């Protein structure tokens, strides 16, 4: 199954929704860095989840959202990778 979203699309959404911290380099390999390190808090992720739903039609329930620690975890959920196959 083709991926709904890749890291570039997520990066674009993060910046559009919640801006960008000058001290963080989002262009590097950020897949496995924590959202906390990337300076995105829970509100920023809620805002991004709303945008993902609008753009891609994928709904991320709030209780799933709070458990997502990294961009990879979020992309896996959006792209429908079964929980067992996900890296956390």
């Amino acid at each position, binding site marked *: 199954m083709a991926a709904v979203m890749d890291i570039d699309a997520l990066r674009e959404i993060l*910046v559009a929704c*919640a*801006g960008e*911290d000058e001290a963080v380099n989002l262009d590097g390999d950020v897949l496995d860095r924590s959202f906390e390190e990337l300076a995105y808090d829970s*509100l920023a992720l*809620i*805002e991004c989840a*709303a945008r993902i739903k609008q753009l891609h039609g994928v709904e991320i329930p709030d209780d799933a959202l709070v458990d997502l620690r990294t961009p990879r975890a979020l992309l896996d959920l959006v792209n429908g990778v079964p929980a067992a196959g996900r890296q956390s």
Partner: protein
Amino acid sequence: MTGTVITGMSVAAPIGLGTEDFWRSVVAGRAGIGPLDRFDASGYPARFAGQIRDFDAAEHLSGRLLPQTDVSTRYALAVAEWALADAEVGPDTLADYDMGVVVSSAQGGFDFTHREFHKLWSQGPEYVSVYESFAWFYAVNTGQISIRHKMRGPGAALVAEQAGGLDAIGHARRTVRLGTKLVLGGGVDSAFDPWGWAAQLAGGRVSTVADPARAYLPFDRDAAGHVPGEGGALLVIEDADSARERGARQVYGSVAGYASTFDPKPGSDRPAGLRRAAELALADAGLAASDIDVVFADGAGGADLDRVEAEALRGLFGAYGVPVTAPKSLTGRMAAGGGPVDLVAALLSMRDGLVPHTAHTRHVPEDYGLDLVLDEPRVAQVRSALVLARGRRGFNSAVVLTHPDF
């Protein structure tokens, strides 16, 4: 020196960003009032505003703050940074719980909210920014400043229309007296989106005079309302001992007195509360009216309210008993920002021995009995100042400032 002193301050106003830029314009009588152009206001009965035109938020705020802040909060965050830098206060100057924040906002985040409400009715609730949850809110400036500068001491937000900025200074002083070493206090406002503008016009006191130099004339016989402005000021209010211990590089003055009162209900035969606020602030400072060197007036810019203020001042000081000024004729009325900006001007009057004039006003009715400083700044030794502000629907506040050597 004892008590609570002012060790730093800054301003964002239509006539200048930062204290010195602002003060140069005040002394030069350079006005910041012009046609409101933040949206198409041509269909509205009032079209003049005091707009800040040279503020680039991205220069002052991190990219993470831009999507979550109203224009008023952006001003507040920039001014906070400048005021703390002026006082040489950084995150390690004092313990985080020894630093508090008290900021007044009368209007909240109108511009931000207008855009989100537009999304609400045109696209649906899921399109409304999650940041609307706090970006609209009166306390957001206090919160954002507290977070950004790690000032974890007592925080508060006060709302009392144009009087609220002085109330914030009074509460900052109270907070210092209760044991917090340093409090950043003041007020900032902005509401120049279509909704905010409509709300201001609905108040019924905005001038419709079609000449920017004649639209807002505090105490003039031709006064016909005010021009709304945006911006404000924040002051670093500090315990005098703490300021001395940390070697604060300057003390601009002391917050010697403060009081607020509320007007009786409309139609009452009891007098308006402004004079009582001034009297109580003087008593709080332990000063007599004769000790005051200048009054920075509220200057509402309408015959009814100007007369009430003139009567209060005449009653307190005697006819022509004290120099009075209202430099806000250059900026428009900045709601919660207005009082704190007047405090900054009063402190600079003390520093420079110069009382700024009330630009644009020319003809003060004789029976006001006011020594209004007109045409140009007046050279005068200023060792104390009374600053007044009134908020719509009955708020009156007064602050007495004294020179560091008073």
